[in-house]
């Protein structure tokens, strides 16, 4: 509430007319252009493939996070769910469960976790932040307990090979993102469930009085988020060829940041599926660019911070102008 009111307040000064029409996509392309010019390595097929691969895992959890944020909630557990599911799939594979079954069983963790979150929020009346912070802590513990802190390795090569595949020059991980993004887009923007997600985030009371089943909508959002995090966990295991309970540490903030940079509002009811895609691509490009430019790792953090401020500022400027 507070920040909406502030954002609508008219502001003077700080006009950069020439940049106003740059959308987030424009800023991304601009960064790509600058990197292509300043480094030899950036615009190579190899690097672009890497970039897409690196962005994929964040993009997947950021899409799930976006559903939750639009309902006015937050899912801090996604990073821990990535870690937990990467160990679960690793343990199953280690126990010689067939790949399809191991992956299916791991993905089924998603609905269970999502239901638990929604239950805590709806029935126990916990704020989403606390509910998912608690499970963040607990799931890390469960993952560590399952593996005794060790890394699990020795997967069948087809499993680890998956994340290396390419089709039409696009890496398999990014194909997964596409395969997730399209139905998510349709669900959020073209189905009635998507409409209810927005309605709940905008005014739960009005939605309820209009006959929207609030509980079902919240269950849906948290199940999607947890299931996508499980998927990201499976893909992470495939990509790094190990299962570690501590993978995905800090990814909750990354996924929220991707989503919010992409224009999602933490107060709910504002957001889209393209947002987290662009957001995670931007964050990945910043990291990749800094690596290619061989920026000192400490400067890298400083630059990342200020780039985020700059990017979101320009994007806000455009939005504000448009309304």
């Amino acid at each position, binding site marked *: 509430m507070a920040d909406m009111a502030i954002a609508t307040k008219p502001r003077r000064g700080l006009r950069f007319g020439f940049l106003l029409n740059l959308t987030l996509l424009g800023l991304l392309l601009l960064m790509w252009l600058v990197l292509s010019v300043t480094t030899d390595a950036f615009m190579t097929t190899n690097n672009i493939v890497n970039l897409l691969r690196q962005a994929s895992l964040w993009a997947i959890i950021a899409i799930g996070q976006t559903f939750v944020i639009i309902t006015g909630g937050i899912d801090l557990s996604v990073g821990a769910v990535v870690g937990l599911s990467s160990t679960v799939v690793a343990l199953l594979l280690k126990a010689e469960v067939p790949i399809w079954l191991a992956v299916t069983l791991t993905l089924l963790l998603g609905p269970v976790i999502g239901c638990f979150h929604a239950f805590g929020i709806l029935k126990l009346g916990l704020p989403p932040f606390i509910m998912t912070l608690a499970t963040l802590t607990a799931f890390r513990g469960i993952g560590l307990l399952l593996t005794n802190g060790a890394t699990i390795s020795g997967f069948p090569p087809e499993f680890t090979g998956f994340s290396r595949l390419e089709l039409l020059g696009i890496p398999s991980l990014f194909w997964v993102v596409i395969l997730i993004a399209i139905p998510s887009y349709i669900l959020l923007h073209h*189905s*009635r469930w998507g*409409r209810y997600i927005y*309605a709940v985030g905008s005014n739960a*009371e*009005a*939605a*309820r*009085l*209009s006959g929207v089943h609030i509980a079902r909508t919240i269950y849906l959002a948290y199940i999607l988020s947890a299931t996508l995090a499980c998927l990201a966990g499976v893909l992470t295991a495939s990509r790094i060829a190990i299962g570690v309970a501590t993978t995905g540490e800090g990814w909750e903030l990354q996924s929220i940041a991707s989503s919010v940079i992409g224009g999602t509002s933490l107060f709910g009811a504002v957001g889209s599926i393209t947002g987290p895609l662009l957001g995670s691509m931007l964050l990945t490009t910043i990291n990749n660019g800094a690596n290619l430019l061989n920026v000192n790792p400490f400067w890298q953090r400083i630059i990342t911070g200020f780039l985020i401020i700059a990017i979101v500022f320009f994007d806000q400027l455009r939005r504000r102008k448009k309304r």
Partner: protein
Amino acid sequence: MTAAPAAASAAAVPTLELRRLDKRFAGTHALKAVSLGFLPGEVHAIVGENGAGKSTLIKLLTGVHPKTSGSILWQGREVEFAGPQDALALGINAVHQEVVLCPHLTVAANIFLGDETTRFGLLRKREMNRRAQEILDGLGFHLPADAMLSDLTIGQQQLVATARAASRGTRFLVFDEPTGYLTRAETDQLFALIRRLHAEGVTIIYISHRMEEIFQIADRVSVLRDGQLIATHVVAETNERDLIREMVNRPLDEVHHKEEIPLGETLLEVRGLSGPGFRDVSLTVRRGEIVGLYGLIGAGRSEFVQCLFGRTHKTAGEVLLRGKAVDFRRESDAIGNGIVLLPESRRDQGLCLNLPVGFNLNLPVFHRISVAGFIQPGEERARAEKQMRDLRIVAASRSVDALTLSGGNQQKIVIGKWLNHGADLFIFDEPTVGVDVGTKAEIYKLMAALLRNGAGIILISSYLPEVHDLADTLHVFRKGRLAASFGHRGTDHESILAEAIGT
């Protein structure tokens, strides 16, 4: 008003003067070069259709929005408002159309917000509570000063906003539709207040869609249409019909309130229902019937219908719908059984304010306009546009956020979203708050159409002429109980009011 104060002569320097004041929002030219002066000590009414620009005008001269062009003169000197605090500093105060208070603070804290009493830098909470209570009591508003604002009904909140503006020793006071949720008793108290301030020489702007109020209270009246100032009259020299003609600029049907519709079978029967905020209520609703509920603010009418609708749970009694006992656990059960509720507070309960107009209009029917869960975009558009046409909702397009509409147009969305829903029993809680004369007639016609199709209506309205004229049966609530019941126009306004107050 009889004695026109001497100060209100044309020669006096206006307290506040607008010169070619202009305001554009993205997509809307809300105010077009309006020039108007408010004379010292006058009560100046402003009338116009929904979306005419009345509230926008108020927001410019209270510093809420920056103007696009033109100038504002305070006692002859040009002023620039960077924000509301600049207007407040001059003594310009307003009761805005939408109640803008802090729900998490107490009534007293809201009344003194921005103007707290302190000693040694510390808040004097007890002192402020005491003074707030004095102010409320002095105005005849029966409200506890230490209650949380969010525990009050929307009507009670409106009283708090009024008390707040009135208590600040202002020189210039604006009332933007202050009587929307008020019943006759509170309206009379408000008018007493305005007369007192008027006598003290405060300049007052008064906006209302209730024409008779203009003639009761105002010295002069200005008409806005489409953002333009059409005319300013001395009230004594004009009449209702002329004002309306200037407002709408098109022929308007005579506002005929009720056609004769035969009453059908019993749709709803409530027997001795008790719940939070009301006790032992029995009534029936037949097909084709409008059952009106009247009572003072906080009498329990809204609580009663919210219980019927499954929002709260009954503690005793029973509800029969089409002869079958029902007990709804949640709102969607009620909706599934053909009952819909149009809530009283459009901001808190009625609208998803930061979502588009079309979205809000279709919210209850998304399941109908989707195939296998997917929304049919054509149908979505068609339905939204039809509703906007039928109710003459003024908006730049169906995809602008509900937030950007004028108050009356927002109210039309709250109504519009249920009209084609096909329910049997409609509960209208204050449906015509802030709605202009023309649209009110449209809404009454739409109600008649529903009744002809066999629906029944429960109508809560604080506007006595409305319930009196429309209701086939009128029940009066007092302190959570039914105090009296009347047939269609079975009695006069004064006895209804007497029952509501309990004297």
